[in-house]
């Protein structure tokens, strides 16, 4: 459940749904400051996800040779 790299704080999948819901609400009515806050927040979340994925992909390729070996417990 790797949504973003949030340590022991729960990586809530909820920001995606919350973001969509907030966007819809803001379309109907809303405040500019709140809208900018949400925009910043969703931007930060996506930046964290992309950064985490970049690191994952790089480390995965660096350590790919270790992934072949596998046993299952009997």
């Amino acid at each position, binding site marked *: 459940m790797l949504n973003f*790299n949030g340590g022991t704080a729960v990586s809530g999948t909820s920001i995606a749904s919350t973001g969509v819901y907030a966007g*819809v609400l803001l379309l109907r009515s809303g405040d500019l400051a709140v*809208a900018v806050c*949400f925009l910043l927040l969703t931007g930060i979340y*996506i930046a964290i996800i992309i950064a985490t*994925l970049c*690191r994952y992909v790089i480390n995965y390729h660096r350590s790919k040779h270790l992934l072949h070996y596998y*046993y299952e417990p009997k």
Partner: protein
Amino acid sequence: MSFHSTSNTIVPRGTNINLKNFFVPARYIRSNFNAEETRACALIPAYKPGELTLRLVEDLLRWNPDIVVCVVDDCTPLECKESIRVLEKIRSISSDRVTVIRTPVNRLKAGALNYGLEHIFGAWGKRLPDVILTLDDDVVIVPATVRNLVSALMTHENCGAVCSQCHVLNKNKNLLTRLQGLEYIGFNATRLADEGFFMGPLVMHGMLTAFRAAALREVGRFAEKHLIEDYEITARLKARGWVVKSALDAHAWTIVPEDLSSLWRQRARWSYGGITVVDNVIHLRPVFQDLVGHAAFWATLCAINLLILRMLFEGGGGIPPYIPYLIIILSLLQFAIWYVFQLWLMRMYREKDAYDWLIRISIIPEFAYASSLTLVLVGSYVFLFFKTLSKGVTERSSAFARRIVQMGDSAFRTCGYTESWGTRI
């Protein structure tokens, strides 16, 4: 170059934050080591051990001809006949490589680990082990697990600890265990992503971690009466300048909670324990990922509240429509990236079956699971708030105030939040 302070002053290495490492992880410095000359000792704190503990000890000895195993019986009650029988069986293993010691009183996991460390450091004298492995008593390993862990630890020069890949042994039990099985694959992925980023993954888990003995001696004992001593000692290792990592080819399996109540209690302990580690830390680098998580969570909560308040009390206002559309698009993009990656991660899940695929593809069970864990985190914050307020209530306070604190403590304890338990409960 000397990296580590031997005094009590914490001297973190490389205090500059390298922005490049957010996207491109740093490489760890490699070094040579002689596997035959490396001495390893496995430390297993056990309380009411079962057959899995016996199997673990036998497997360790069978597959690692030079390892020494120290089982610390954390004062298992003599009435637990089955566990006592298991301990007897371990004692009767005809090998001078196994020691079973018993704590005088129940000291919980961290206490038992410290008791074992005192024994190792005392008994081994000048020939101290190079590597100390800490294992839970219900872990299942495979032949290469320990060898690969030790190799990953010793081939990286400044590495203080290396943890194994976590898998769920009882994942087919029910939906909850399957969800945890999928979640653990995410944990392993997060650890890999964190390699070379802010000194490595956040937590070297207590399930199976190999510590460089010198690093362990430097940071001192495991923190007793702490909710998650593994996170706490990882933070201390990092604060001393040691990096940590996970070993991709060291696999281990554990038993996870099978009912919601046990899972809630476990996660409440992890969640509140994590908050206390962040709360007490001196340097922020060792807990950076957690800080990001907490900050993002609170920012989201504040933004939602602000939105609701503005809508309730001020009604509509004019905002450029592209902003809400941008928010919706970014949220959907985030979801799409997350979903594709989750599907891709399934290739790392060798034990998966059609049921696991169904859970993952359908999203809903994992969404509900993640949301319930968010509630656990909210509870931890409320508990932290309560504990901070109740610090002001002393013996001199009014009977009413003391009664309120007592009732609050009791209510939180019922919900799984307490400061007084150890890892074993």
